[in-house]
C-alpha cells in the first residue's frame, strides 16, 4: 500500500513541479507567466480523482445485478464523473492557466492575385478547344445522364406509377365482421353509446394492419340517422360502420364522443386524437370539425339470418389519408 501511496505522491509532485523543470527568462516566454494558485490547483486535482472514483463506481454498479435502481445509479455515477471532469477543466481554465486576450487581423476579405491566377489557369487550359460550347454540352450530357442512371436503381424501392394499390381493401359483400380476437359480431352485441373495432373475418394478423381493414362500429337511434340518399340502407338497424382510419393523416379514430357531452357538443361524434378531426356518424361520416378534408368512408352493413353482422359491399369512398387520386376512383364493390 505504501508503494502505491509513494507513487501517487511522486506523481503529484512531478505534476506540480513540471513548470519549474526548465527555468526560462520571462521575456522569452510565448505564454505570459502567472503566479501559482495552489488552492484552485488542489480543487482541480481533487475533482479529477473524484471523477475517477465515479467511473469506478459506474463499473461496480454495472457489475452488481442485485442493486435496486440500477439505471439511476448508472446515470448518476457516469454523469457525476463527467461533470467533475468538466468542473476540474473549468477551474483549470479560469484559475490555473493564463487567459490571454490577443488581437490579430481577420483574414483578408479576398485575394485578388490568386483569384486572377485561378481564372487564368482555367481559361488558358481550354485554349486548344475550338468548339467549347459543344464540348461543355457533351460533358453536361454525359454527367447528367450518368447521374440519372446512378439513381435509376432506386426505383426498385417500390411501385411508383401503380396507384391502384391504394384502393385495395379486404372488404367484400358477405364478409362477416369480427373483433380483435376473431369472434364474429352479432347485431345484438353492439350497444348504444359504445364503440367497437371490427375486422374482416379470417384475415391474417399482418393484413389487419392494412388501412382498409379496421372499422369503427357504433349504434345510433334509427330516427337520429340523417344518411344522404346515396347511402340509404348502409346502416343495419341503426348500426353504422366506418373506416377506422382518419382521412386527414391516417391515425386510428379511437375516440367516440357519446351524446352525454352536454350542452355545447350534443351530437355523437367520432374523433381522431391526432389532430381532432371530428366526424358525424349519423350522416355518413361528414366532417364536423378539425382539419380532415374528406368524409369518413362508410361500409354498408347487413344482418344475416343468424344475427351476424356482414358487409354488404365495399366502402363508399377511398380509405385513408388523401392524395391526388382519392376522389377519382372508388373501391371495387
Amino acid at each position, binding site marked *: 500500500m505504501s508503494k502505491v501511496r509513494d507513487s501517487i505522491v511522486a506523481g503529484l509532485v512531478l505534476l506540480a513541479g513540471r513548470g519549474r523543470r526548465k527555468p526560462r527568462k520571462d521575456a522569452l516566454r510565448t*505564454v505570459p507567466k502567472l503566479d501559482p494558485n495552489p488552492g484552485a490547483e488542489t480543487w482541480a486535482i481533487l475533482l479529477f480523482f473524484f471523477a475517477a472514483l465515479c467511473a469506478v463506481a459506474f463499473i461496480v454498479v454495472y457489475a452488481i445485478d442485485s442493486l435496486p435502481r*440500477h*439505471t439511476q445509479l448508472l*446515470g*448518476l455515477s*457516469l*454523469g*457525476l*464523473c463527467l461533470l467533475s471532469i*468538466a468542473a476540474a*477543466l*473549468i477551474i483549470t*481554465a479560469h484559475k490555473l*492557466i493564463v487567459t*490571454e*486576450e*490577443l*488581437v*490579430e487581423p*481577420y*483574414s483578408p*476579405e479576398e485575394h485578388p492575385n490568386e483569384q486572377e491566377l485561378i481564372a487564368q489557369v482555367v481559361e488558358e487550359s481550354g485554349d486548344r478547344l475550338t468548339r467549347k460550347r459543344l464540348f461543355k454540352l457533351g460533358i453536361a450530357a454525359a454527367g447528367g445522364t450518368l447521374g440519372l442512371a446512378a439513381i435509376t436503381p432506386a*426505383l426498385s424501392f*417500390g*411501385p*411508383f406509377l401503380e396507384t391502384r*394499390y*391504394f384502393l385495395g381493401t379486404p372488404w367484400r359483400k358477405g364478409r362477416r365482421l369480427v373483433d380483435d380476437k376473431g369472434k364474429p359480431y352479432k347485431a345484438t352485441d353492439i350497444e348504444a353509446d359504445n364503440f367497437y373495432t371490427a*375486422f374482416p373475418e379470417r384475415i391474417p*394478423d*399482418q393484413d*389487419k394492419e*392494412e*388501412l382498409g*381493414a*379496421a372499422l369503427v362500429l357504433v349504434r345510433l337511434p334509427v330516427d337520429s340517422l340523417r344518411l344522404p340518399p346515396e347511402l340509404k340502407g348502409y346502416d343495419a338497424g341503426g348500426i353504422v360502420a366506418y373506416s*377506422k382510419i382518419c382521412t*386527414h*393523416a*391516417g*391515425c*386510428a379514430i*379511437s*375516440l367516440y364522443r357519446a351524446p352525454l357531452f352536454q350542452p*355545447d357538443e350534443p351530437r355523437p361524434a367520432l374523433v*381522431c386524437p*391526432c389532430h*381532432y*378531426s371530428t366526424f358525424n356518424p349519423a350522416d355518413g361520416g361528414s366532417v364536423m*370539425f378539425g*382539419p380532415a378534408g*374528406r368524409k369518413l368512408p362508410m361500409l354498408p352493413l347487413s344482418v344475416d339470418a343468424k344475427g351476424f353482422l356482414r358487409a354488404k359491399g365495399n366502402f363508399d369512398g377511398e380509405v385513408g*389519408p*388523401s*392524395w*391526388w*387520386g*382519392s*376522389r*377519382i376512383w372508388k373501391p371495387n364493390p
Partner: protein
Amino acid sequence: MVGIPDLEAEPVIRRTVRFLDERTATAPLLRKTLRYLFPDHWSFLLGEVALYAFMVLVATGTYLTFFFVDSTKQVVYHGPYAPLRDQHMSEAYQSVVNISTTVKAGLLIRQTHHWAANIFLAAIVLHLFRVFFSGAYRKPRELTYILGVTMLMLSLLEAYMGYSLVDDLLSGMGLVIGYSVGLSLPFVGGNLMEWLFHGPYPGQASLWPRMYIAHVLIFPILIGMLLGGHLLLVAMKHHTQFKKKRSQSENAILGVPAFPGQAPRSLGLLFGTAGILFLLGGLVQINPIWLWGPYHTYSSTNGAQPDWYLGWLIGGLRLVPSFDLVIDGYTLVPNPFWGGAAFPLLVFGFLYFWPWIERRLTGDQSFHNVLERPRDNPRRTAIGLWVVSWVFLVFVAGASDRVNVMFDLSYTSQIWFYRVFIWVGPTIIAFVAYRVCKELQASEKTKHEQHKAEARARLAAIQRTEA
C-alpha cells in the same frame, strides 16, 4: 548510441512535436491552430453544445445499434415485462423493450440518446436565434449559415426517423402522419409515398431496414459532413465578435487562443454537456415505450404529444380548417400539405433566403465581422421576432388538447382563437419590438451625448483653471 537522439535530454513534448512534424509536416499548421483566436461571449457556446450533444448521440446511438432489430415482423412477446406478455408486436418494438428492460445499462443509454436528441435540436435552434438576431450570417458567412440551416433540417428528419423506428404506439402515429403529409404533396405525393414505403401504408417489410440505414448511417454521415464544412468555414473566416473593446474592429479580432485558453473551456463544456445528458438519461424518464405498447394501424391514444421539436408541425396540422383543394375530382392539395409541408417549407425558405432578402432591402454589400445587437437593427429584429412568435404560437396551439384537459377550456374555441391570433400576435410583437429597439437606440444616443457633453465641460473647466 550513434544516430539516436538523447532521450533523457529531450522532454516528451518536444519529442512528440518533432515526431509529428517530421512525418506530417504539420508544425506550422499546428502552431496556427494552437494560437487560433476565439472571441468570448456566452452565446457563442450554443453551437458548441449542439456539437457535443451530437457526439453523445453518435456514441450512444452506436451502442444501441448492437441491440436494435430493424424488422417489423410480428412476434409474440414472452419477455420479463409482464404487462406486455403474449401481445403481438414487431421485432423492432420488442428489441427496444428488451434494451429498456433486460440489456444492462440499456435503458440508461437509450434515455440518454433520447435526451441528447432533444437537447441537440434545442441547442441548434438557440444557436440559430443568436446567429439570426446578431446578423452573423451576413457576408462573408452566408455559406456557413446555409450549411447550418441545412443541418437543422436534416437533424429534424433524423430525429423523427429515430423516434419512428421504435414502432411503439406513439411512434407509429407519428409515422403515419408523416406518410400522410408526404401523400399530400401535390401531383407526386401518392406516387412518392408508394415508392418510399413500398406500397400504401404501412408498406412492406423493406421499409424498416431502409429507415434504419438512413437513421444510423446516411443522415449521420450527411450531418457530419455538413458539420465539418460548417466548422471549416468558421475557421477559415474566423469567428464574428461583438464590439466590446476598442481593439475590436471589422479588421481585428480579439479573442482567447485555442491553447491554452480555450481548450479547457471547450473540453469542460463537452464534459459538462455529456454529464448533464447522462444524468438526465439516468434520472429523468423519457419516452417510456413499454407503457405506450406496440403500434397497430388500428390503434391510437388520446393526449399524445410529439417530442418538442415536432410540436410546431402538429400545431400547424391541427389549425388548418377542414378542406382539401379539389378541382373536378382531382385532389390538388390534400389538407395535411398546409400544416405539415407548406408551413415548414415556408419557414425554411425564409431562413434560406433571408440573407439575400436583407441585402436586397438594405443594399449592403460590405463585409461584416462585427456583430449587431438586436437593437442595432430594429427591422431585422422585428421581422425575426414575427417569424419566431408565429412558429411559437402554432407550437402552443398544438398543445390545445392538453390545455383543454387541464383547464377545461373548450378545444374548438381555442383552435378558433389561434386561427386568428397566430397572425395578430406576431404582428403586435414585431411592432412592439421595433419600437423598443428604436427607444433603446435613442436612449443610448442621449447617454452617449451626455457623456460627451460632460467630458467637454470638464475639459473646459480644467482649461479655465489653468488659464
